């Protein structure tokens, strides 16, 4: 069987693709909201600490694992992990998380990407002109409802979703150098240009001009003024650690797969730092200067808090910003709309392309599929798995995918790869690999951090999410535990989520109130949520079976050779 000949065209292309993988919707929509909800300027302290103690080490681990294992011809997460400890067969099955998370996240991520595509179109044709704020908010609800149309095209949200998946698939079919790298080289500079333009608009917003009630600086003040008491709250640290995962795309397996195409003895240390810090620049400098300053300028702080509580970052971006841009009038309104949703689109597409790499690596390198065929199979899988998130968006399917694939899997997989690298592969070999060909001198303290601090932090984050106490009141929960009253789980904890605690409590309340319509609606939601979980489990088992088959193929090939 002839092995495919994939590879990166240039170093800049590789770094931009890695940075593009990291820079996503979370940089512009999730980071500012997390900062606002977790102590404003004080959030940045745990955030940067988590970046240095967890984000940077995980980047180094993933880049180095990829380059090390890639030289043996492995290009998909299970076998890339197995290579670090060839004697124990179970690593490859833990590596399945590094394919599954990508396929499942791509399924709902492409849907969000398709919203941005649709909103670029609507901004360009002036759909939002003369709409009231309520009408713009209603437009989003109508758009995500499959039975309604905002353009006259039937099943409009499905059409845009399919277009988005087709675009991703087509780019992936062109390969790393010819597709992913070119997209990153075009998308990343455009994203930064759009971001700088909007950040200037946000920061210079002046009360009384363009219909604004407050200066953009009021929003910045709201975002950056520290509340130091929040630093002692474990929930703030959990939120900061969670944001680092989302923003760097670590714990997914994409960085490992991208790095597996780097040649031996080529730098990974400086490349990893450059991609990681580029992402931080986009998040902290640009991401913080757009959404909150503009929204606070028009709605005030109370209005923004209300909007955040009802719809988070998506609520502000899709239900408020198109209306605010209209206040800027004429050409500027159209340009700002295209720039903002175009920026989100490029941020999304460079991330979703990376998600195709582990699946394609499995089919191309283990089953001998042609690149085009592997890419179209990824597209088909994303389409099949993504359609339930489109059709049953309001039934909680989207949220279920995001929670299990986009949150739990990432924490778990990061913990596994960190232990594998530092404790099984060994820190002596690991440190040597990191520094092999390095063009930057890393502080030797990172050796200690990689071995002890990062795995311990990951364990803390995982266990923390597993056992979040009722109302996230950690101090109160520990006093109750010491008093012998047990531990009361919060509905948002992993334990609470598995048991659908929140939904079951709502059903009980509705049932006690005799509201049969609400009970039926909630039970229907429970049905779809459990269905989504079963679908995700089936996908995981399907990928595990493929990895097992690939392993058998390898054994058979080895037998033929001997």
């Amino acid at each position, binding site marked *: 069987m002839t092995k495919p000949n994939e590879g990166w065209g240039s*170093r800049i292309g590789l770094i931009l693709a890695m940075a593009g993988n990291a820079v996503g919707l979370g940089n512009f929509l999730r980071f500012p909201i997390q900062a606002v909800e977790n102590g404003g300027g004080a959030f940045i302290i745990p955030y940067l600490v988590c970046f240095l103690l967890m984000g940077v080490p995980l980047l180094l681990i993933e880049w180095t694992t990829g380059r090390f294992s890639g030289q043996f011809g492995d290009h998909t997460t299970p076998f890339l992990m197995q290579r670090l400890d060839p004697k124990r067969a179970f690593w490859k099955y833990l590596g399945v998380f590094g394919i599954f998370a990508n396929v499942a996240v791509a399924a709902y991520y492409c849907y969000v990407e398709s919203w941005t595509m649709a909103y670029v179109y609507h901004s360009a044709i002036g759909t939002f002109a003369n709409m009231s704020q309520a009408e713009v908010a209603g437009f989003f609800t109508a758009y995500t409802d499959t039975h309604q149309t905002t353009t006259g095209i039937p099943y409009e949200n499905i059409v845009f979703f399919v277009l988005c998946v087709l675009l991703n698939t087509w780019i992936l079919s062109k390969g790393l150098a010819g597709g992913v790298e070119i997209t990153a080289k075009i998308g990343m500079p455009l994203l930064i240009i759009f971001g700088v333009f909007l950040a200037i608009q946000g920061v210079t917003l002046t009360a009384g001009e363009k219909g604004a009630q407050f200066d953009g600086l009021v929003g910045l003040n709201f975002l950056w003024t520290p509340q130091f008491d929040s630093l002692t709250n474990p929930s703030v640290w959990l939120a900061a650690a969670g944001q680092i995962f989302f923003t760097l795309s670590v714990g997914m397996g994409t960085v490992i797969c991208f790095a597996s195409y780097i*040649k031996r003895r080529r730098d990974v240390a*400086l490349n990893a730092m450059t991609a990681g810090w*580029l992402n931080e*620049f986009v998040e902290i400098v640009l991401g913080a200067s757009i959404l909150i300053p503009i929204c606070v300028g028009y709605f005030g702080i109370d209005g923004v808090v209300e909007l955040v509580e009802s719809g988070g970052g998506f609520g502000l971006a899709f239900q408020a910003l198109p209306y605010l841009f209209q206040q800027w009038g004429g050409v500027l309104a159209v340009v700002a709309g295209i720039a903002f949703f175009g920026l989100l689109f490029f941020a999304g597409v460079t991330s979703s392309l990376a998600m195709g790499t582990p699946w394609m690596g499995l089919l191309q390198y283990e089953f001998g599929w042609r690149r085009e065929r592997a890419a179209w199979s990824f597209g088909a899988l994303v389409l099949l798995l993504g359609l339930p998130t489109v059709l049953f968006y309001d039934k909680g399917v989207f949220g279920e995918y995001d929670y299990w694939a986009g949150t739990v899997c990432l924490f778990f997989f990061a913990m596994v790869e960190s232990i594998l690298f530092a404790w099984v592969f060994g820190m002596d070999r690991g440190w040597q690999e990191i520094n092999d060909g390095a063009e930057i001198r890393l502080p030797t303290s990172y050796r200690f951090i990689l071995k002890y601090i990062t795995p311990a932090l990951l364990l803390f984050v995982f266990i923390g999410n597993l056992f979040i106490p009722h109302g996230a009141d950690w101090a109160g929960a520990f006093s109750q535990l010491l008093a012998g009253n047990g531990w009361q789980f919060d509905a948002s904890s992993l334990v609470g989520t598995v048991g659908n605690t929140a939904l079951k409590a709502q059903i009980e309340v509705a049932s006690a109130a005799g509201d049969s319509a609400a009970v039926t609606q909630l039970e229907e939601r429970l049905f779809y949520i459990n269905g989504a979980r079963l679908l995700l489990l089936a996908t995981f088992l399907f990928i595990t079976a493929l990895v097992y088959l690939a392993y058998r193929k390898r054994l058979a090939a080895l037998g033929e050779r001997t």
Partner: protein
Amino acid sequence: MSLSGWIMMLTSTVSVTAITIYCVWRVLTAPEAPDDQS
């Protein structure tokens, strides 16, 4: 904007921008690999 807000914002944005520029500059000025492969 409050003084603590200004300090927090300027410290964070300036340091992140400076490190990013340093990393990009190091990559751009690094000697080209023989076959221009990453």
